[in-house]
């Protein structure tokens, strides 16, 4: 879709706004980017806010920050439908397996056998937000670790270059309620089980850098805005552009109790939200009245239809 790509290149994008739900994680937006608007929504419903904001102004680059409770418990429905609509937002889950702000109860991403500080054991299967996102057709799905900035940074950059929903599940130990032995989201546990898929480099489109690498050692992914992601092989080969492969890798890792981190799946060319809506270039929020209100002739024509019985009327519905 080269047309889309070109369009994107010429459009100004505004930093932020940063949106969030409710939780310790959702307080994050208050701590950075003081120069952009922020929006602390209600619990689990940031996705719908993001959808509305983006519909109103297609020039806004949105960052959405959520927690595992916010996304996988109360917000699971909205999360799935955001992904399904492919609304362009960099969706970061600060995943600690607990409800931090309400003092450490298990969330829906808590692993089987993981314990609470009180010793209580979780017996329920965790919801893997990455697997779900891939399943729902998300074109950018990554998992990382709050302790691994080297991996997280290029992933974030690449996410902003993506044209649809980009999901990054960041395992983020809660030092107050879930950093003990028995927790599978503690620093110690994550460090031990972390299995990075590749080393990542991000090359912005405006940096015309030629990167040398050994053939076969690196996979290059071009993003719609011309920037590139370099995925360097670490041990086993991993093809981040295969949906089936990604699903299978996650399934296998689950069985082996490994934590796969890195770019799990990427498919940069997908119908973006604005195309599905066939929006004009002008942000809807900036439409002048002349474009937003049809002329008198239109109303007159419609009125005459309802005079003569040619206008349509409400169908009787059911429930």
């Amino acid at each position, binding site marked *: 879709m080269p047309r889309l790509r070109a369009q994107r290149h010429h459009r100004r994008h505004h930093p932020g706004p940063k949106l969030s739900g409710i939780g310790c994680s959702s307080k994050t*937006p208050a701590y950075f980017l003081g120069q952009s608007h922020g929006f602390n929504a209600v619990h689990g419903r940031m996705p719908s806010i993001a959808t509305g904001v983006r519909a*109103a102004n297609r020039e806004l680059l949105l960052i959405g920050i959520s927690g595992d409770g916010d996304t996988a418990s109360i917000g699971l429905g909205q999360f799935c439908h955001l992904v399904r609509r492919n609304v362009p937002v960099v969706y970061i889950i600060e995943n600690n397996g607990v409800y931090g702000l309400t003092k450490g109860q298990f969330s829906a991403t808590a692993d089987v056998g993981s314990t609470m500080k009180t010793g209580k054991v979780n017996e329920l299967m965790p919801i893997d937000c990455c697997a779900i996102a891939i399943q729902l057709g998300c074109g950018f799905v990554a998992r990382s670790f709050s302790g691994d900035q080297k991996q997280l940074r290029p992933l974030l950059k690449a996410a902003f270059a993506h044209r649809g929903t980009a999901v990054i599940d960041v395992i983020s130990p809660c030092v107050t309620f879930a950093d003990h032995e028995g927790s599978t989201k503690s620093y110690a546990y994550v460090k031990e089980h972390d299995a990075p898929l590749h080393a990542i480099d991000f090359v912005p489109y405006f940096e015309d850098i030629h990167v040398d690498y050994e053939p076969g050692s690196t996979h290059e992914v071009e993003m719609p805005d011309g920037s590139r992601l370099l995925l360097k092989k670490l041990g086993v080969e991993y093809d981040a552009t295969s949906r089936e492969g990604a699903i299978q890798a996650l399934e296998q890792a689950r069985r082996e109790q490994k934590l796969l981190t890195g770019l799990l799946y990427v498919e940069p060319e997908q119908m973006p939200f604005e195309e599905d809506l066939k929006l004009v270039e002008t*942000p809807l*929020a900036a439409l002048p009245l002349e474009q937003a209100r049809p002329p008198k002739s239109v109303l007159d024509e*419609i*009125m005459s239809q*309802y*005079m003569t019985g040619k206008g349509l009327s409400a169908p009787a519905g*059911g429930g």
Partner: protein
Amino acid sequence: MKSVVNDFSIQVATVNGSGSQTANSVLLRAIFQMGVPVSGKNLFPSNIAGLPTWFTIRASRDGYLARRRETDVIVVMNPETAAEDVGSVGAGGVIVLNDSIPVPPVPEDRFVYRVPMKSLIEPITTDVRLRRLVTNMIYVGVLGELLGIPEQEVEKALDAQLGKKPKALALNHAAVRAGWEWARQNLTKRDPFRLERMDKTAGKILIDGNTAGALGAMMGGVSVVTWYPITPSSSLVEALIGFLERHRKDEAGRATFAVIQAEDEIAAIGMVLGAGWAGARAMTSTSGPGLSLMAEFCGYGYYAEIPAVIWDIQRIGPSTGLPTRTSQADLQFVYGLSHGDTKHPILLPGSVRECYEFGMKAFDLAERLQTPVFVLSDLDLGMNNWMSDPFPYPEQKWDRGKVLSDEALAKLAKFERYRDVDGDGIPWRTLPGINKDVKGAYFTRGSGHDEAARYTESPETYARNMERLARKFETARKLVPAPDVWEDERAEVGLVAFGSTHWAMVEARDQLRAGGLPTGYLLLKALPFTEHIARFVKKYRRVYVVEQNRDGQMCELVRLELPADAARVRSVRHFTGMPVDARSVTEEILKQEGAPAAERRVAEGVTR
């Protein structure tokens, strides 16, 4: 026998999904084209096919558009309800019967016309499915002959309806004519009901409130519409989609609007708030169950001060209840929608014209007041056809409210999102991405912020903000549309109503006047109340608030607004799910007027 001309009601009893819709609207429009004021009401079940459904047409030379409680002419097409249907017609009434339907014996004083529909339809088509659909046109022909509808009006109405489908058109024409011919040759007119040409519909339109509201929204410049289907609200958005697709695309076919079918109502309102916050004119439309789901976000919108327009097309019952019956019972729930201290402005359209006007007005109010604004319609107003003058093109530009331009922003020493600079409780806002000046950036959250939108848990700051919000709501009183008031110098009794109840009120007032009880009347257009209600209530010895819910919700609000007058304010309630009719209102008021016991009960504080 004296003729009854242009003043009776027809009820057609059929089965849902049997295709009677075309027949009924052709009948309705044909009468309309004769210049006779007419209204049509569809009483349909919560089901797609197979359950009983009724269509009521009322012709009224006096222009009364409310439902008439009595049925004068019934067309019996549904075996399942035939007995009940036949029984619904009183002495002197007319029964047009598909003669293959067995019915119980009918008293002598009804006029029964038995029509051999089966044998009449057979020659017209061999396709069994089509036969079922087109049979309905036969009663149109029969009624045309019986009531005196000029043939060409029926044909014209049929053309308008099916003009684009020549095959269907021809079939339907044939069926109408078969009915007509048969009636002409076989029936002897014995009943008194007749239609004659008048000139009371020239230049008028026939339209339903949902379509009118949709038109208002488009002309109001809506740009983001979100929804989740629900009866009886879906048709508003579906009409709006139709209008927008046709009239709001640029030359390249690109849309100046976004319509998003959400996954549920929580998402729908969330999207509206996101879009309103970012500066679009955003709306959603729903009914009771959806409204319940929107509660949390609507409270958030009140506190975060985000413009939003929410239509509620009211229906009765809880979530598995009677979604296809009308009601005005969401009033108090909407007024304070959400936990905590919350208050929302509500517009109360009483006519299709007001659906159109408030469709625009709601955006102006929402953006001016920076708050969710509700438009409370109902199934009767929204989904039935109403006669009206055509809608005028808006004279005014839109009011986008207090949005700072970048120039204005640049001149400010600092921007404070929640500072009441003008004393009306309404602060200034900026829009992400639209305001390029970073000075305008701020953080949005529900409460717990100071004037500069900074987080604080200070009790004083919290209380100050709450008081400003209350002040803002006082400002709303001055901005919402004023009621219509009809005074009567001789009256000691005042009536108050809102929304679709209006049409029964107009007629009931005439009935009461004729019965020796002149009344003043105030038609509310919005909440919060404007100053008019106090003046009105003080004028009358007794005031009746008439409404379509069980708990007398508007009556309670009036009492709360005027505590010193509360004991003089009485409640008349209609809550069967059927649109209220004038006769029921009149009877109840006369009963309460004549009953000292009722008076005592009211004085003792019993609402009902």
